[in-house]
């Protein structure tokens, strides 16, 4: 049942889930590569939690299947999950137990976890001093950190997180993002859902955008950013400049916007561009690099943009 590519830690193949008349997930196929942080980005109700629940074997898909660590979870779910950690949406802890006892209960379910490891993960998320307090007395941020500690107990290769920064304040969010980046540095693979674009942009290497149960696009964050990049210029002769630029093979397109030209080309070609124009005796009034914005792209693909954007 091994997948062809050992570098793919998680793969869904044509996943779908139907709730009566609603298709919460539709033919969703994605691939998460080893050592990457994959952002599963989509608005509320897009099907993120449903997809994650299917991946973790908590709900049965109506169609398709999941491969984790090269194992088909239809037949090897337990084995695959022993190498995976997760934080779910909503409460998933014993409120009347202390944080330490919560971890003890979970640690028992993985053979290799020792008492020392419990202290280690508590240390990692900075909760060692509060470990003897009951979970119900924890703040939202502390709860999330404790749940992260719980997901790391058995030192999993893959960590699946469903909107882990929900309910955190900006400082808490940043702290959490840093923790996740740290994990990625140690070679872990992270699959994290979010409805916050900025968060994904800062935290993730790859992004899959989901809407109404469909995966709209799947790409690396840097490639996505490059997509929105452009060179913006004002020139002495707009008509001829368009002709010259369109003839260059590294220019993907030229559009006019109130007297300016927006050139879809790599930013590092700015010098080449000005030389090409100058050779035809067209001169620049202004040349600006326009940074790519994931937001624009996100709004574009999800179709949530205001008209004309």
């Amino acid at each position, binding site marked *: 049942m091994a997948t062809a590519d050992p570098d793919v830690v998680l793969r869904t193949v044509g996943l779908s889930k139907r709730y009566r008349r609603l298709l919460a997930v539709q033919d969703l196929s994605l691939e998460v590569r080893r050592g990457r942080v994959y952002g599963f980005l989509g608005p509320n109700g897009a099907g993120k939690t*449903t997809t994650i629940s299917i991946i973790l074997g908590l709900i049965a898909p109506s169609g398709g299947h999941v491969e984790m660590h090269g194992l088909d979870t239809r037949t090897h779910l337990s084995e*695959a*999950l022993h190498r*995976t950690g997760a934080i779910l949406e909503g409460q998933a802890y014993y409120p*009347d137990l202390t944080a330490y*006892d919560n971890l*003890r209960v979970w640690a028992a*379910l*993985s053979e290799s976890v020792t008492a020392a490891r419990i202290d280690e993960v508590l240390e990692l998320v900075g909760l060692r001093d509060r470990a003897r307090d009951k979970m119900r007395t924890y703040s939202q941020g502390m709860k999330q950190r404790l749940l992260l500690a719980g997901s790391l107990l058995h030192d999993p290769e893959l960590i699946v997180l469903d909107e882990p920064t929900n309910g955190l304040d900006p400082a808490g969010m940043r702290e959490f993002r840093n923790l996740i980046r740290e994990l990625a540095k140690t070679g872990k693979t992270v699959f994290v859902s979010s409805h916050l674009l900025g968060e994904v942009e800062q935290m993730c290497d790859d992004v899959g955008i989901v809407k109404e149960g469909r995966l709209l696009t799947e790409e690396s964050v840097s490639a996505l950013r490059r997509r929105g990049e452009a060179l913006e210029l004002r020139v002495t002769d707009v008509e001829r400049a368009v002709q010259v630029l369109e003839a260059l093979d590294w220019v993907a397109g030229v559009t006019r916007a109130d007297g300016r030209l927006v050139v879809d080309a790599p930013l590092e070609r700015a010098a080449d561009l000005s030389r090409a124009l100058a050779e035809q005796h067209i001169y620049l009034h202004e040349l600006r690099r326009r940074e790519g914005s994931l937001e624009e792209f996100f709004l574009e693909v999800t179709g949530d943009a205001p008209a004309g954007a």
Partner: protein
Amino acid sequence: MLLPAPRILAAELLKVRKRWLPYVLFLVMVIGAAAHIWLLGYANWANENSAFDAFFRNETLRTFVLPHALPALLQSGQFWGSMLVGILTASVVGTEYSWGTARQALLRGQTRSEYLTLKLIGLVMVASVGLLAALGIGILFSLMASALVGEEVGGSISFGAAILMVLRTGYTIIPYGLLAFALTTVSRSTTLGVAGSVIFVVLEAIMIAVLSGIGTAWSETARAFLPSHNVAAILSANRIEGGEFFSLALRGQLLPVSLPDPAVAALVLALYCLVFLAISYAVFQRRDLQ
């Protein structure tokens, strides 16, 4: 079925140990035992001491003086124990849904049948310890009351026979626990599980009375299938020296002759257990947990 590793079982017991409900339920059992020995037994006897004729005197003594107090305690303990074990089961099973923690266990690679089996084993252990401890305290009360009375009632049982009585009674509680288990697993709700199992015990007692009153062949057949009728049959085997049958009339008031054979009754109860287990495992195996 796979037996859980000791550390997993210890964690399951830790969860139950740190709740207050088991202690409250245990306290109720102890209060029940105290009421039985001191109110129903000793106080009754002490109040009407002189006026009693010999038969009633002896009868009252038998409620709280050993060895007769043992089957008597077991009889009432069975009734209350069934309900309390149902409540404990519904709570232990149901809160794992409301807290979302059932998902935590499953996403850590525990299979669904392992999850249910672990719950069952944990519950059997906790309920056994609680019920036996309550029985022990009841016996202690009985010894104290007997010492105050200072009278013999005769009769004796071997240690083995006493153990057998306890085991028989324990067996009759299992279907009620499993009923709560199935109700809660299916409904995912502690409230429904508790309500369902308590209502079932009460409703059953009423139905037994009604069906016995009707007295036709049809009603006797229907009654024969009710768990509590079979429980009464098994408890009727809790007799000292093959002598009289003790009944506090919480279950059927019938004499052993009109009850089913205890072995047949045990089979009927086993059938109930199997059905409840099958429902629980089948439903949980397919259940979406979100």
